[in-house]
């Protein structure tokens, strides 16, 4: 368990980072990059819908969350990671899932 304790950091951070990036995109209409399936290419800039079709931002949230989680996993000392208990490891993802349910209720009204 101790050898791989840093995995606990990765899993605790990933969902939070993903939702953070998603909400930031929602609020400010920005993303690290967008994928335009009609054009079949990635772009950092927002291209008008009429020219490029609908963009996909999901890949950028996944990528961004992976980078943030891997960076924190590398930075956090193993002794700290070992101390992460059930409350963190289960509580954070559970809170993120609950947050998703609460936020996505907007589609049902």
């Amino acid at each position, binding site marked *: *368990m101790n050898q*791989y*304790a840093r*995995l*606990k950091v*990765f*899993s*605790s*951070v*990933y*969902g939070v980072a*993903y*939702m953070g990036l*998603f909400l930031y995109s929602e609020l400010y209409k920005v993303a690290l990059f967008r*994928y335009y*399936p*009609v054009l079949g290419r990635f772009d950092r800039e927002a291209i008008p819908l009429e020219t490029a*079709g*609908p963009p*996909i931002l*999901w*890949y950028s*949230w*996944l990528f961004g*969350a992976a980078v943030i*989680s891997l960076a924190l996993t590398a930075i956090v000392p193993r002794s700290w990671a070992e101390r992460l208990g*059930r409350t963190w*490891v*289960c509580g954070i*993802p*559970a809170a*993120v*899932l609950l947050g*998703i*349910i609460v936020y*996505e209720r*907007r*589609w*049902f009204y």
Partner: protein
Amino acid sequence: MIQVLLILHGLIAAALIGAITHQAFSVLRRQPSASRTSFVGRYRAVNSPIFTNAVVLMFAATFVLGGLLYPRYRIDVRPMLEDLQLRAANGIFESKEHFAAVGLGLLPVYWLYWRPPLALEHAPTRRYLTWMLAFIVWWNFLTGEVLNNIKGLFP
């Protein structure tokens, strides 16, 4: 090609749902009086750790296939849902993509807590992680099925 990917995505998801449900039932608290000869008793009395690597691999494979299918959904399906004003369908798909991401992030720690030897003091953590993953898999499976058959369900 897209049809092959979609079928493969569905087949692996079905196998995943079987594996994670077995494991989720097996980590329920056992009542001392519970019979091991009943169907439920036998369903729960499996060697749970053997599902772990399969669950991780199948979740990752389903996720990658879903990621490959996503552009087609964005171009063909989502505009249709918007035209039909099926807001709830759009909403459940958006939840599906978020839940899938959270599930992907959970895989390392899920794998860690299911690594043998299984410490007894980590049993509750294993249970909660398995239930969360099972919830995500079930939600995403049902959402996928509903959206795949939406024209038939809401003609």
